[in-house]
């Protein structure tokens, strides 16, 4: 089960993901990123309270990489727990998705 909240700041959109993203809940993450992309803002995603992610959730992030590039916008993830970061790293996603430790690092990077 996942809870997702979206907040719009001056020059970026902040999405907070809380809980578990799997094949049954990844649609909620998909909807939130799609809505943020439509606002043509940079996107910061707070994953501090993300306890679990499966390939369905990883696939959502990957599926929007090209669109962020085409729109010249950035998508930055921050605050991943070590066990969650490990899942991203199994696929080498740290090389294609910008991930930082803290929100302030994320704000500096947008």
């Amino acid at each position, binding site marked *: 089960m996942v809870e997702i909240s979206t907040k719009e700041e001056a020059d970026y959109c902040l999405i907070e993901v809380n809980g578990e993203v799997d*094949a*049954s809940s990844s649609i909620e993450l*998909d909807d939130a990123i799609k809505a943020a992309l439509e606002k043509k803002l940079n996107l910061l995603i707070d994953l501090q309270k993300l306890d679990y992610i*499966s390939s369905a959730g990883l*696939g959502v992030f990957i599926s929007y990489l090209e669109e962020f590039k085409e729109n010249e916008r950035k998508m930055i993830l921050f605050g991943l727990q*070590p066990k969650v970061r490990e899942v991203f790293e*199994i*696929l080498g996603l740290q090389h294609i998705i910008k991930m930082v430790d803290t929100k302030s690092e994320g704000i500096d990077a947008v």
Partner: protein
Amino acid sequence: MQYKLSIPCSKSNLEKVRNFVSEALNDTQLEEVECHKIILAVDEVCANMMIHSNGCNPSKKLDISIEHVPFKQLEFIIRDTGKYFDIKGYHEPSMQEIVSSKRKGGLGLILVKRIMDGIEFSTEKNYNICKLTKKLNFEV
């Protein structure tokens, strides 16, 4: 030690699968990150079988059993009566292909292959069987 679970093919049951695997791993002395990866691999196989082999039909069931041979290995058997998946015909997409096609799928089996030490698909009577193995390497 053996653990068993039988659940309907509904994606909402994946959390039950993860809890079941998590409980079985309690006895293994594996670290949290390692347990997390194993739980993920089983979740991925179950999600694939629910979605692709059984069309998320809750009248169909997945039978999951876990055998823990202490200090040696974990064996996960997942059985269903749905459509057979032929791993020999599976082409592993590159990350470049997945990114440029903007697709959301295609990552699950890659994760499973990188996490587990063995993955086999077979059939027996009316059942499709996926067997996952993970060696437990402890220093003596």
